[in-house]
């Protein structure tokens, strides 16, 4: 079976700045893959390219056996790519359940089905008690979970999580990790960008490290964290020599 997601030599330039350069990664079905790297490594850009916010300057993106390089974000969602945003983008004037219904409507033909799906997802993500509350009333951790719930409501094959565990308390982060595991158990493939190494490493099956817009290292989390190149990228040369 081919990979669910593949980027083929993707390059993205912004007015002279090369944010991604010749990035080729692949994600297999059922995996949880972590995309890590220091600030400015090009993680968010790669995410946006996969989600279809803008097309890459060069290269191709294949999803589920088809070339999706030129497809707009909405169409990619229909094909099974769900995403969250690093800076949460809730529909603030709508209630929590209405937020999730928007996602469910991609697949549902009747409002009743969309509503049922939304309530299921809220149950799954632990937001059921907040269903009728306006999204603007949620605390930050809940808003993160709403991002995930909304994306899950679109019944994605691939879920892109953009720093959903960052900035949470340890207890909240543990619940988050638990949620990501349960998402995978339902058969959804997960690609997650994360900053906090100690949270993400035990969770992922495979880690891809980006640095300066290129793939630096890729492999098992335990190997990746010991790799001198990764340590250099994160902490600078001095520490790598020490290691």
């Amino acid at each position, binding site marked *: 079976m081919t990979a669910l997601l593949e980027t083929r030599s993707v390059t993205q330039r912004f007015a002279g700045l090369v944010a991604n350069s010749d990035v080729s990664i692949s994600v297999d079905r059922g995996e949880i893959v972590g995309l890590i790297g220091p600030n400015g490594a090009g993680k968010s850009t790669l995410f946006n390219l996969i989600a279809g916010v803008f097309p890459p300057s060069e290269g191709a993106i294949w999803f589920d056996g088809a070339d999706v390089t030129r497809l707009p974000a909405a169409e990619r969602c229909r094909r099974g790519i769900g995403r969250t*945003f690093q800076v949460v983008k*809730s529909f603030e*004037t709508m209630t929590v359940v209405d937020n999730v219904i928007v996602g469910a*409507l991609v697949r549902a033909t009747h*409002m009743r089905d969309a*509503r049922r799906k939304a309530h299921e997802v809220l149950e799954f993500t632990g937001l059921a008690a907040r269903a009728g509350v306006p999204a603007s009333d949620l605390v930050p951790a809940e808003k993160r979970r709403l991002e995930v719930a909304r994306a899950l409501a679109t019944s994605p094959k691939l879920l892109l999580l953009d720093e959903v565990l960052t900035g949470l308390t340890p207890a909240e982060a543990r619940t988050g990790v638990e949620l990501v595991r349960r998402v995978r158990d339902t058969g959804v493939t997960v690609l997650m960008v994360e900053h906090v190494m100690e949270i993400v490493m035990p969770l992922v099956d495979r880690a891809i490290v980006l640095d300066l817009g290129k793939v630096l290292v890729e492999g098992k989390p335990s190997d990746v964290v010991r790799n001198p190149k990764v340590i250099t990228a994160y902490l600078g040369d001095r520490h790598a020599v020490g290691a």
Partner: protein
Amino acid sequence: MDRQFAQRRRRDLVVAAGLIVLAALAPLLVKDVYVQNIMVLTLMYAALSQSWNILSGYCGQISLGHALYFGLGAYTTALLFTRFGVLPWFGMFGGGVISALIAMALGYPCFRLRGHYFVIATIVIAEIALLLFQNWTFAGAALGIDIPVRHDSWLTFQFTRSKLPYFYFALALVAVAWFVTWWLEDSKWGFWWRAVKDNPEAAESLGVVVFDSKMGAAAVSAFLVAVGGSFYAQFVSYIDPESVMGFQFSLLMALPAVVGGIGTLWGPALGAVILIPLTELTRSYIGGSGRGVDLIVYGSLIVLISLARPQGLVGLFARRNKASAR
């Protein structure tokens, strides 16, 4: 939770039906022609504002150029009737379709604009249309079109002896505009529109085709406003560019929704019931010398509302409901 939601929807429907019946009985008590006239205008603006609310309230694309669609409706009906003898009922439908098509044609470039730029574009386009009509000889240019009044008939939708037929038609128009909104509110389109208003980028990531949503909202909104314009042409039986396409109509469609609650089901009607009688009364009491005083009243109201209740007057009811639910 679902049951609660269904209950609220049903309650809205029952309340609306009740209000429509009450309004329908009003002429039994009100015999004064002047007051009846105000009632007709109030209903018409309620319907217009309700239609405006679909694009600008629900979908968040603030238009201050809806006078264009109002005028197109009026002109289509009047031209078809006077030049080709086509009955206003067909003119009404034709005007609606033309307006919807033009709204989409204009939306194609304009919906790429965001925020203030979009608002400015709507104003400018409506002003251009106004100038075009002022110079278009076939459509009577600046002199306008005098719709010949024959005899009272539902066929030609002309009534000279009584305002009541207009009243009931305007009431039906409000009912239709309200019901369309109610129906759309719990539909895919309704959800898409609100998502587009709140955050287009997030909406797009959830499979919402933002551009199509805006186009849909524009078409529905323009269609209904044009039907209102057709009605107005028959009601006043004389139109000229300034009197059906002037900027004040764009404002008079937006303000009731803003006062009552933009993007809400009840806001536009509530706003119209408060604003329109107020304007008409100030206008007639202060008389010709005080042209513009109604606008001062308007302005003051807007300032008051934006200070005290930015989300509109329906917020008052919502809070009470919430409190009683506790």
